[in-house]
């Protein structure tokens, strides 16, 4: 059985993340604000629906801490 490839990989710039939690509210499967006060990435973005929300998370983050890397050929 092969696992389908991810649609995108999210990364958090911890130098600028302020743990506002918008990303977690939009996509709790992928983002979670930990006890240290900044967001962590739990797993890759796995569907078109998740990708839309991940892009919105990028936009809504006031410190622009989310970086999405699209996986070529998967979209």
């Amino acid at each position, binding site marked *: 059985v092969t696992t389908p490839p991810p649609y995108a990989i999210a990364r958090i710039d911890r130098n600028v993340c302020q743990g506002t939690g918008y990303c977690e509210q939009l996509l709790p499967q992928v983002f979670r604000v930990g006890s240290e*006060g900044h967001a962590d990435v739990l797993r890759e973005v796995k569907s078109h629906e998740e990708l839309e929300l991940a892009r919105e998370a990028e936009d809504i983050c006031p410190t622009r801490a989310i970086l999405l890397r699209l996986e070529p050929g998967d979209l």
Partner: protein
Amino acid sequence: MTHRPGLLDITLITSFAEADEILKSRNFMQDQMLEPSKAPNLQGNLNSLHGSAHFQRRRVESGLFRRRSLVHYEETILVPELRATLRRLADRKRRDGKVRADDLPLLVRSALVRAASALIGFDLENDEAVERLLAYSTTIAEGRDVVWATTNQDDVVQRVHATWQQLLDEYYRPARARREKLLAEHAAGMLQESLLPNDLITVLLRNPDSIAGGGTGDLIAHEVGLFLTASVNTTTVATPKTIEALLRWIEGHPDDRARLAEEGFLRQAAQEALRLDPTVPYLLREAVADTVLTGGRAVSRGGLVRIDIRAANRDQTIFGTDADQFDPHRQSKIPRRYGISFGGGIHMCIGLEFTTGNQSGPEDERTVGMVIHILRELFDAGIELDPNDPPQIMSETTQHKYSSFPVLFSRL
């Protein structure tokens, strides 16, 4: 009716760690007690919302701050407007070749009004409309600040209420009516999506759910009032502070004069100036659950805390033993050079990038920010303090505001 303590009786938070923890905690919400003391009262605006109502509103409005829009506000509107203002000043050159501007905060505000109008959706048809809006926005900004005043402000409040009604009649209602008409045409298939404006009034009209539940009255108008004051005020307050601090810094550090043209240096200086003297003195929060902070402070459900932004931003454990001093090269323990001047947590200022730009991520995603653009233009024009007429700080408020700030330009 629940007894609400006066502002100065509320538990004061001065340490950065406690302030940061409260701002990020889900156990605290925005307190509503300040809004009715402001003029105009803009109840139900983004800043006063909590929980899902806040999240839904923020979700809709964040689209206004995408990079393409910010670059448009900065490069197509702000910079040409500022350059035109400076060109007009050049007509008043003195015998020594210098040009005097009597009121630096007003000069900054005048450059910002067009960009703020584009963000909000006000249609400015001619220079007279811009001038009138500039006057209205100055008065309304005064009214929103009366809550921080230490003297009676009844006369200001009265003036603000009249001005607010004029602004609604002359700018807001016509702009809203035009957009309602465009949206009706779009709904009827007579207007393409790409021809609809992308501004605050339009996005709120298109997303009525995001505006419902925030209170009573015309909540779009309340949001317009918030955006008008917030988008103009932070930059109007931050820019003169940075100018004064930098010019005094250069006197003692002449090697940094060459750096006045560097975007990165100007951003660090602006963030440092905002850290030392934030736009507003306090943030209020109310506990929604019994809470014990990491340092042991207990706050009962319903309890209020008053975060002293200026004190937290001068916390020596975070910003060093010289935290009271201006140092554009400062290295702190946290990456936020501006401290908590833009708030924190879920209520982190939506206009942060609008004000100071964004420098994270790929190069083509970065923005400069209004304050940085203005600083660059003013230093390029050779701005200097008037040695015979230095800036004066207002005494009748807990805010750090100038009552007088004349400047000279040597390269206009």
